[in-house]
């Protein structure tokens, strides 16, 4: 008998079918990966096992955990299971912890709930588990609050909460999606160790095939609420018998066809950043003193030619977004100069910046958050047109918007729609349409595909490559994802602690990184082919 046995699970919420005929098993000491695109039902499967679904949910089929029939167990029995025999870790470490309780309280709470131990004993156990997940009490006292920890540290606390009582089964729902690649590798290592130490079963949910391949013994691929393909990881992914599996693997490793950038002879650079620094005042110390300022960006120089595509890669907090804000003239450098299209940006008034703003646009990470939900696509896309010197007539505006929508693969009929009527991928197309409407020479894209599913991500990367070729737009891609960098850029800059520590041709740098920071990024980056090869080798 398996540790967890999901048979024929079906779920509908408020009459909407969510899951049907799901069959998944997890053995003790085994890692099972649950893969699928957003909305495929991965999280709902996990929450069904925990029985933490909304009130209107109707479940069918069977879930057996360690001999207990989960679906018919009374709520009190479920409370006894949750946090003791089944632990769960969620995606968003920044919000998964209660902001008004110390980390010690939050870990100890679960221990005291399930074990009748004294406060002191619970505290001792809390220290032990926090120590185990890499937060030694000497450096991270139990009295810390979540806001005093970074994202990676908070995820360690969440893992400590879930694993404090050595559960038989751990469910991890996208545990590393919100973290940069280096942190991701650390957290995955930690999970792997915990599994082998305690013979814990791990149900790992992820949209990232590479992560799952590196981790899971077996995988199940979910699509539209049903299991499309399942089995041994290396068999499923190397044989690719199911068309959807093949589609996912192809999309995950997709590299758009691009022409290498050939700079015109002696062309003037489009963007010239020279010795730019941005300092933030240090935290107050006492009444008048301040500690050393933080150097968010430290004497950075770079040159971008017309039509060139550069990737700026680095871990979160390395200063890449600060640099991008300064290039976009949304923030002023403390020192140094930024010349765009022959014009110095520093110290210019908003009016003087208008021509430059027209020539550079931005695409943000989150296609959900960057649109006003009450405006039509037409208004949203037409927004940057105010930067034109002569205002357009209503008809001209519509034509321009229609043209921009056409360029990104949407239709003029989409103009009347509101943001919620578009899918995630379409919304990102919409934000690209908004960026290209003024025919800019430069687009700064801040993690433009990291919120998207693999197949949509492949399409959007194609679109970027296509616009680069047809319209000659130069890109500055900001990303922590080396696959993206490899797919879209000619050159790469590696940033670490506010400095550019390495630069060169993307393929060269990624194949043979020189600096320590670049090596860390490259070795931590999940890679589907490498992971699969390693698995096949281990199998012999």
């Amino acid at each position: 008998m398996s540790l967890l046995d999901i048979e024929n699970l079906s779920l509908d919420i408020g009459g909407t079918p969510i899951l049907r005929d799901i069959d998944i098993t997890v053995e003790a000491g085994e890692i099972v990966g649950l893969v699928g695109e957003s909305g495929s039902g991965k999280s709902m499967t996990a929450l069904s096992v925990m029985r933490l679904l909304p009130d209107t949910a109707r479940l069918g089929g069977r879930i057996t955990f360690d001999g207990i029939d989960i679906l018919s167990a009374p709520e009190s029995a479920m409370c006894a299971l949750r946090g003791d025999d089944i632990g769960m870790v969620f995606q968003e470490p920044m919000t998964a912890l209660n902001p008004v309780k110390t980390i010690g309280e939050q870990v100890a709470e679960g221990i005291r709930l399930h074990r009748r131990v004294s406060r002191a004993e619970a505290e001792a156990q809390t220290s032990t588990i926090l120590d185990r997940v890499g937060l030694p009490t000497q450096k991270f006292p139990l009295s810390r609050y979540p806001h005093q920890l970074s994202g990676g540290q908070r995820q360690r606390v969440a893992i400590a909460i879930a694993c404090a009582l050595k559960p038989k089964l751990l469910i991890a729902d996208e545990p590393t999606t919100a973290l940069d690649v280096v942190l991701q590798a650390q957290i995955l290592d930690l999970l792997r160790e915990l599994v082998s130490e305690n013979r814990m079963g791990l149900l790992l949910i992820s949209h990232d095939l590479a992560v799952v391949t590196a981790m899971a013994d077996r995988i199940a691929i979910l699509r539209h609420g049903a299991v499309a393909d399942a089995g041994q990881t290396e068999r499923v992914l190397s044989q690719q018998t199911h068309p959807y599996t093949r589609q996912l693997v192809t999309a995950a490793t997709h590299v758009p066809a691009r022409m290498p950038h050939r700079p015109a002879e002696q062309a003037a650079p489009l963007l010239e950043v020279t010795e730019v620094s941005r300092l933030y005042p240090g935290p107050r110390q006492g009444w008048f003193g301040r500690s050393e300022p933080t150097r968010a960006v430290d004497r950075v120089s770079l040159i971008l030619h017309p039509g060139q595509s550069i990737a700026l890669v680095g871990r979160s907090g390395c200063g890449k977004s600060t640099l991008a804000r300064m290039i976009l003239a949304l923030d002023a450098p403390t020192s140094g100069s930024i010349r765009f299209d022959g014009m110095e940006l520093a110290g210019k008034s908003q009016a003087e910046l208008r021509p430059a703003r027209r020539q550079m646009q931005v695409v943000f990470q989150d296609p959900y958050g960057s649109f006003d939900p009450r405006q039509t696509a037409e208004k949203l896309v037409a927004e940057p047109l105010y930067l034109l010197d002569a205002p357009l007539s209503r008809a001209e505006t519509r034509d321009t918007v229609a043209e921009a929508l056409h360029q990104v693969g949407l239709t003029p009929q989409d103009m009347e729609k509101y943001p919620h009527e578009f899918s995630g991928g379409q919304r990102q197309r919409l934000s690209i349409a908004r960026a290209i409407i003024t025919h800019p020479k430069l687009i700064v894209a801040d993690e433009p595909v990291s919120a998207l599913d693999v197949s949509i991500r492949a399409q959007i990367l194609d679109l970027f490559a296509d616009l680069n070729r047809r319209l000659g737009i130069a890109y500055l891609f900001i990303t922590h994802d080396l696959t993206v960098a490899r797919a879209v850029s000619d050159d790469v800059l590696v940033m670490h602690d506010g400095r550019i520590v390495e630069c060169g041709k993307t393929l060269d740098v990624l194949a043979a990184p020189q600096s320590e920071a670049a090596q860390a990024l490259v070795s931590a980056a999940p890679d589907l082919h490498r992971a699969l090869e390693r698995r096949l080798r281990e199998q012999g």
Partner: protein
Amino acid sequence: MMTFVFKRVLFGLTTLVLASAVVFAMLQVVPGDPARLMLGMNATEDQVQVLREQMGLNQPLVLQYLDWAGGLLRLDFGRSYTYSVEVSELVGERLAVSLPLALISLGLSTLVAIPLGIYAASRRGKTADAVSMGAAQIGMAMPNFWFALLLIYVFAVWLRLVPAGGFPGWSAGVWPALKALILPALALALPQAAILARVTRSAMVEVLGQDYIRTARAKGMTARSVLWRHALRNALIPVLTILGMQFAFLLAGTIIVENVFYLPGLGRLVFQAISQRDLVVVQSVVMLLVAAVILVNLLVDLSYALVDPRLRGNR
């Protein structure tokens, strides 16, 4: 944390000083000579001048201000023109009605509203939620003078449990005084409770949707203990804000209910003082209210910090 408290207190004191200057300045601009007002229309110019000299009205404004502000510090608010008694005595009497009244009605509304809001939030979308929030809606819509009349009719006229109005004074004993205050406190508490219940509910509903609530449930906590141990404290900030505002209102904004119950409260004192141009009284009561609001805000700020560690100090 101590620096934080110290800073907030300092900030409160600065506000108080600035506010006193503004109050003083505003009353200088108001037309009407207090000396002439006190002596009546038939007084001669000489008589008025003599009184002005006595009252210190001919001194430079800065000196007048310092004199007045110094008096405030010694709780010497000056003498009322119309009542011809010490203002401190006058205000003290009224405060003995208004302060307990405000506290009782605030206590009543908090005791009812917060549990009701939490309950409604925990039953969100169900009948119990609809019923309790419907009741809150009615509570907000009902004019409190009308509700006051209703209370008088039921409890004073019909059941004869409490007096219909007036205030016997605390010297008549604690129980009779409380009996006189209970109906006005109820009348004042109803709309406050309705607002507070809705604010509590919506704050709780928002908090219950947060990720950390799910984390707490995944630890094995029951829905009920999550509500009290994780959700409530996070939902308290907006509730505290509203409570602070309501207390300030209850201290002096209760003139209608005071009139219905014929209570000698601060609200009526201000109203009479304004209509009789008794500027010394107006000035004093306004300063008192300003101080009360600043004090309450200080307490609210400090309790924010108690509730939420992110608001403590060093940032």
